[in-house]
């Protein structure tokens, strides 16, 4: 009896399946059309809502960052929605956790891609790599929560500022002009395996080539928490400075070990290399003495309008939270970029995915009020939108632990740098 029953059920199921196919209308969040205000709409835009997809890492290696980023994004869009939204439409945020796992990310993307007009945030170069073929064929824009130039040229990708290699070139420039590094000197570069570190290394090698500097490379992975061997190699090579493209735990270890081995040299880090927590570790004194950060994202002590507004709003919405430059501030800036693109698209009366992408590429001097250094130019997809960087020194008194050194700047060398 049972196998016949199973057979009949299976046949019935098969017929049902064949009958109610999903059809061509997979996109539920607004199909093509024109709404009442004669704005052309596409997937992700209806008469009263615009939907943005967010793909942070909320449970993997970068989970704390991801949570911070969502705080920043929600902060921006809640305020924007209260002020009337964009194009008379409210902004809806759809979040899917990628767990920093390409497999999860691809599946998560498949899940929300039909409903969104673009991706407000994607964290992780390997994630973006995995998603790019689909994002390109779906024709939507993507805010990349990372600053590597290896992804360029990319029509669909928006970076908030300039890239790690440019940061490294600026770092070398700073060391030579302010920290006494001269032609013929040796500098060390401690970097993470992967897009972040190796992209920064490209920049430092370029700058070194221009100024006859020798670079001692030390590649590490996030699992390496003890920098004894690396510092020893740097000391033996007689480095006059160290470039740093890794994460805060390694920074603390590097600074601490260097101090203990009497390697008293300046250390200049890319943006992701700092968190104010480090001031509570035994390496705090060493960091205050020798640690600098070069980054597109503003240190929280910057007195510009955008940063101060962010800080005030953040403290009101998250009284117990801690704002961070690479977390909440980044997502806030990313939302500013998305906002500018969507607003322009609305002016062009074209809220299709292509319309938004075209609007993004028409922005040539986007001013974020200082959250990102300088203004952003999205007209050339083969170059990063930003050119300037903030230079900051560790300071226990400054909010966020970093004190900006002067206005955002650009090294002359950077202008001659070729991407790819």
């Amino acid at each position: 009896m049972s196998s016949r029953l199973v057979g009949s059920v299976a046949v019935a199921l098969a017929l049902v399946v064949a009958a109610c196919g999903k059809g061509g209308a997979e996109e539920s969040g607004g199909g093509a059309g024109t709404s009442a205000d004669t704005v052309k709409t596409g997937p992700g835009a209806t008469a009263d809502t615009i939907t943005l997809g967010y793909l942070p890492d909320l449970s993997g290696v970068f989970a704390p960052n991801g949570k911070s980023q969502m705080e920043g994004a929600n902060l921006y869009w809640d305020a924007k929605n209260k002020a009337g939204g964009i194009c008379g439409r409210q902004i809806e945020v759809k979040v899917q956790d990628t767990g920093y796992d390409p497999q999860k990310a691809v599946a998560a993307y498949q899940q929300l891609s039909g409903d969104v007009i673009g991706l407000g945030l994607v964290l992780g170069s390997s994630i973006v790599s995995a998603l790019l073929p689909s994002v390109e064929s779906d024709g939507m824009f993507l805010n990349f929560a990372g600053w590597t130039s290896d992804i360029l040229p990319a029509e669909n990708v928006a970076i908030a500022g300039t890239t790690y290699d440019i940061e490294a070139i600026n770092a070398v420039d700073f060391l030579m002009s302010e920290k006494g590094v001269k032609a013929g000197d040796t500098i060390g570069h401690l970097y993470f395996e992967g897009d972040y570190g190796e992209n920064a290394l490209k920049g430092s090698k370029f700058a070194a080539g221009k100024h006859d500097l020798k670079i001692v490379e030390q590649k590490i992975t996030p699992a390496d928490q003890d920098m004894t061997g690396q510092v020893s190699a740097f000391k033996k090579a007689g480095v006059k400075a160290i470039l740093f493209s890794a994460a805060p735990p390694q920074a603390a270890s590097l600074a601490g070990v260097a101090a203990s081995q009497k390697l008293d040299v300046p250390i200049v880090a890319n943006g992701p290399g700092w968190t104010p927590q480090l001031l509570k570790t035994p390496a705090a004194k060493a960091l205050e003495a020798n640690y600098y950060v070069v980054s597109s994202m503003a240190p929280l002590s910057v007195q510009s309008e955008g940063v101060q507004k962010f800080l005030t709003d953040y403290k009101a919405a998250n009284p117990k939270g801690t704002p961070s430059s690479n977390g909440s501030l980044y997502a806030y800036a990313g939302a500013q970029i998305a906002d500018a693109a969507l607003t322009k698209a609305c002016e062009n009366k074209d809220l299709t995915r292509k319309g938004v992408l075209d609007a993004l590429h028409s922005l040539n001097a986007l001013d974020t009020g200082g959250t990102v250094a300088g203004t952003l130019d999205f007209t050339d997809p083969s170059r990063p939108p930003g050119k300037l960087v903030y230079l900051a020194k560790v300071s226990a008194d400054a909010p966020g632990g970093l004190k900006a050194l002067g206005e955002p700047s650009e090294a002359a060398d950077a202008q001659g740098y070729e991407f790819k």
Partner: protein
Amino acid sequence: MSRALVTAAVFVVLAALPIWLESFWLQTALFAMAAMIAAIGLSLLIGIAGQLSLAHAFFVAIGAYGYAYLAGEGVAPLLALLGAVLLAGLAGAAFSPIAGRVRGIYLGLASLGLVFLGQHILQNATGITGGYEGVAVEPFSLFGFSFSNTDPDTLVILGVPYGRLERLWYLGVVLVALAVWYGRNLVRSRPGRALATLRDSEVAAAVMGVDVVRYKAAAFTVSSMYAGLGGVLMALAFGRIVPESFGFVLSVDFLVMVVIGGAGSVGGAAAGALFVTALPLVLNHYSGSLPLLAEPGTGGVGASEFSRFIYGAAIVAVLLFARDGLAGLARRARKERVA
């Protein structure tokens, strides 16, 4: 007659599912199918041949990168697939002498070393592997029909546009069916029984005339070929592969799949693979509607952490209460019904 009806019905359902499943489910299914193929190979190795290997992710990587490289160099996709599987098999054969010398848990942990070595090579041999940037994977095609969104550019069946995921579904189903069929036959065959004797006692097997060295090598070769095939399907399912996907976590995942499914069982491996692969993706999918879970972006336990918890708890539960895995449970349920 009813048997034929059931088979026919299953066949129809499998053929018709892409009409109904949305891209998220198709994508998840493809990843699960790739894992199933590889898991069957590992289940045979551990359960039948008795060799504990944690290196499976390494052979999967060889399959994936092998296909990407060959197809990228212009080799016809079908040949690239076969080539990748062969490469993985060769690698497995090359590893078997070590398996010959080292036994039991030492073998398991030694094979773990292969995974780390593999990661190192994938990250540093940038000429072939693209390093941390990864490589794009050429779509699969057969006699001019491409398993992507082109060639034919629009294929509509029963009102549903058939794109890359829908087309790959069929390839996946065929490959899984082949893998299961071959595996089941292998278990029942003479070589399969020789391997089982080998697992129970190498000395007894040798006494009975089983060429221990050759059979161990064969076991590793076959298991790695399964891994390689799984790797190819995984590469196709992704469209672009990066080294991180083939690390320590994946190796452990395979071991868990085999344990949950029941070592030595082909069906069990497939079930275990489905569970381990689909669980985090599905929980993520429904995270909005499950009451206890925090929304992504707030504090508290989110869908991903919850799925890790379930994953860990499932391992513990299976090992405490159902040591033979799902296959053992199924076997016991069948026996009870007959009795």
